[in-house]
Every structure is written in structure tokens, then in C-alpha cells.
């Protein structure tokens, strides 16, 4: 639906007033915040290594790599800003802004204007990068503050979100929490906004969404459907993950232990040991010996609900109980020749 001319003129006029009333860009700043962030991570990692906390050290190393990449990016951006053209800003006139809005309608099909919220939005076609479907995105610009000094004046929303498996906030390799990291495009996007070149701004953001920079994504497309093992922090494909049957944490193959009785997967914390054979066994499969209360797996617990040790002891006791009776009977042995009464078997014979 095309907007009436009057509405577009009103919007153009408002954007123009916002552009001319804004103060010039602030001075350049060194990225100290990111520098100190990396410094803190480096110290924590060293501490974790010294204490032998391998998983924590691995996780911190990953965060550190991300931080250093960000630092390089910020320094590169600063270098670009210092090296770029320093000619005075050319701000679009109301007529030009009107033409920009018209051309946006033609380029994106539909332009959403919200005069109250002071926003302009366009929607992209569904985006698919390297075979991964990410869906369409809405680029929403708040024209009340077109400078990029105090945070980004625009947001990019996934209208049919297909976020990374590991992080719901990452809806695109270069978008986190609806904020785009422009990378190479930062300088040029900033300029287009400051000059009121709305058409250039929206087309550039759309181009950025269509491009994948494999060197610096929030989540790599190759890992889009991947998960992190909770125990060792290793990244594994989602279809290769295992969940602990008890606490349901994600596990890699190396960190999964199967119960020797039910064969269900468990994490290290949720698995116990059989006191009899010392094999891995889950708490559901373990049963206590009725005599010594030792935890036993099904193989080590006998039919009489005793462990083999207790069973052996019981047998021994039974044998010992039988022994005194035997000794008593041997003390009074049955004689082979019975004592017989006098004249037994004698017959009176007539003389």
C-alpha cells in the first residue's frame, strides 16, 4: 500500500527537522572499554589455568577471542573514520527526503510510517545464507536520533525468527538482540543516516543482511544448529548432542556416561557407582543390600536382595549353625552291636 503524498511530506518534514536540530558528531574515542574487558578476561583465564579449571579456562579463552576481535573491529573503525573524507555534511532537503521515501516504497514494496513513534520500517525478503534459512527481517529506523554516537538509531527484527540453537538472541550471524553489527558497513551507514540518505541506509542494511562474514559472526552458520557441551564447553552438532537423563544438561559423546544397567545417558554428576563391581550406575537402578545397605547394580544384587558379600556371609553363618548339631551327634555314636536282653532269641527245646 502506497502512502498518500501528504503523509510522506509530513514525514519528510519531520525527519528534516530532526536532522538539522541534531548536534554535530562527538569527537573520536579510543575503545578503552573493550580493551579493559579483554584485559579482565585474560587475567581470569590465567587464574583458571593456574588452578587447573580446564573447562572454565576454555570458556574464557573463547570469550577472549571474541573480545579481541571486537577490539580489532573498533580500532579499524576508528582508523577508517580518521582516514575518511572530512568534508562538511550535506544534509538532504525536505524535497530530497520526500524522494527518498518514495524510492523506498518502490524498492521494498511497502513502507511503514509511525509518526507518533517517529519510526520508518521496511521488510526484506526471506533471507537464506549458505543454506541456512533465517527468515525475513524488518529494519526499523527511529529518525528522532539519527546520530550513531548514543547507540544505534535502528533495530532489525526477525519477523519469522530462526535463531541460532545456542542463543535465541542471535537471529542472524551479525545480529544480536535486534542490534546489527555493521562491521565494514559501519562508517558508510553512519554517514548515510547523518546526511538523511534514507534509501542508501535501508538498501545498505538489507545488503548487509544478505552477506555473511565468516570471520566474525556472533554464531557461525556452520554452528547454527550446534550446541555447547555443558561439561567441557565443546561445540557439537545439535543432532549429536546427548541430554543427561536426570538433570537434562547437554553433553558431548566424551562427557556422556551410560548406566550399566539401563543404558541411559548421564552426566558425571548424576551417575553413581555400584559398591560391588564399581561400574557406572544411575540412582534409579541402584538398590540397597538389605543387610549392609551397600548400593548395588542389578547384577551385583542377588535374588535374596543381598549383595554377594552378604550372601556369602549368610551362607557361612548357616554352615556354622549346622556344625554344632553334627558335633553333638558324633559325641553319642550309634553302636553297630545293639545291646540285647538276656535269652533273646533263645527257644525252649524239649528235652
Amino acid at each position: 500500500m502506497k502512502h498518500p503524498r501528504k503523509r510522506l511530506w509530513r514525514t519528510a518534514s519531520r525527519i528534516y527537522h530532526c536532522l538539522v536540530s541534531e548536534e554535530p558528531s562527538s569527537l573520536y574515542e579510543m575503545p578503552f572499554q573493550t580493551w579493559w574487558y579483554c584485559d579482565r578476561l585474560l587475567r581470569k583465564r590465567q587464574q583458571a589455568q593456574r588452578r587447573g579449571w580446564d573447562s572454565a579456562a576454555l570458556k574464557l579463552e573463547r570469550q577472549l577471542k571474541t573480545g579481541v576481535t571486537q577490539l580489532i573491529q573498533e580500532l579499524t573503525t576508528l582508523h577508517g573514520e580518521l582516514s575518511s573524507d572530512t568534508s562538511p555534511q550535506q544534509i538532504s532537503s525536505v524535497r530530497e527526503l520526500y524522494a527518498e521515501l518514495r524510492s523506498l516504497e518502490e524498492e521494498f514494496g511497502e513502507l511503514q510510517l509511525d509518526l507518533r513513534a517517529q519510526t520508518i520500517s521496511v521488510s526484506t525478503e526471506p533471507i537464506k545464507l549458505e543454506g541456512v534459512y533465517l527468515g525475513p527481517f524488518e529494519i526499523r529506523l527511529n529518525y528522532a536520533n539519527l546520530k550513531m554516537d548514543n547507540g544505534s538509531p535502528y533495530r532489525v527484527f526477525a519477523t519469522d525468527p530462526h535463531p541460532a540453537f545456542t542463543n535465541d538472541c542471535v537471529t542472524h550471524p551479525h545480529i544480536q538482540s535486534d542490534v546489527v553489527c555493521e562491521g565494514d558497513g559501519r562508517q558508510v551507514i553512519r554517514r548515510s543516516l547523518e546526511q538523511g540518505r534514507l534509501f542508501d541506509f535501508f538498501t545498505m542494511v538489507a545488503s548487509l543482511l544478505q552477506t555473511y562474514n565468516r570471520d566474525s559472526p556472533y554464531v557461525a552458520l556452520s554452528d547454527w544448529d550446534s550446541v555447547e557441551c555443558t561439561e567441557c564447553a565443546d561445540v557439537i552438532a545439535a543432532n549429536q548432542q546427548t541430554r543427561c537423563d536426570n538433570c537434562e544438561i547437554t553433553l558431548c559423546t566424551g562427557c556422556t556416561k551410560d548406566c550399566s544397567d539401563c543404558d541411559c545417558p548421564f552426566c558425571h554428576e548424576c551417575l553413581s557407582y555400584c559398591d560391588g563391581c564399581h561400574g557406572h550406575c544411575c540412582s534409579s537402578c541402584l538398590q540397597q543390600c538389605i543387610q549392609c545397605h551397600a548400593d548395588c547394580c542389578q547384577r551385583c544384587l542377588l535374588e535374596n536382595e543381598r549383595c554377594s558379600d552378604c550372601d556369602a556371609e549368610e551362607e557361612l553363618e548357616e554352615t556354622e549353625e549346622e556344625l554344632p548339631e553334627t558335633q553333638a551327634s558324633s559325641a553319642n555314636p550309634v553302636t553297630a552291636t545293639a545291646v540285647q536282653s538276656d535269652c533273646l532269641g533263645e527257644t525252649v527245646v524239649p528235652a
Partner: protein
Amino acid sequence: MKLLLINNDGGGFADYIDVPAGTTVAQLFEQKMGDAEARDYLIRVNRQPCPPDQQLQDGDRISITPTKIEGARS
């Protein structure tokens, strides 16, 4: 004749330039962008799509925007 050239490649700048009359879009692109491939750019004259052989007019506004802009992790 005088044109407004907006080059959104690299740092991005907008400036008025003088070109000989009859210069086409393709010629201006070659002159300003060197060996770059035109298919990697969105080229607009007065915000409208244009053919490579379109002759430029005095006061035209030409914008050259890369179609591939690499984002990054912030």
C-alpha cells in the same frame, strides 16, 4: 556538467563532480570504481534503476552501493 556522486563503497562519501557531457553510467562507474564489477553494486540515477548505457544529465544524482557489505560481531 555537474553531478552528485554518492559512493557508498568503503568509507562512503557524497560529492559534486564534473564530467564531460554524454558520459554514460558505465563510463562513470569504470572511471570511479576501477576494476570493480558493476554487478556487485546497486547503481541508481536519481534513485531510479538505470541501464549501463544511460547518458547522464547535468544535476543527476548517482549512487553506487555495494550489494555485499560484511557485518561483524560487535
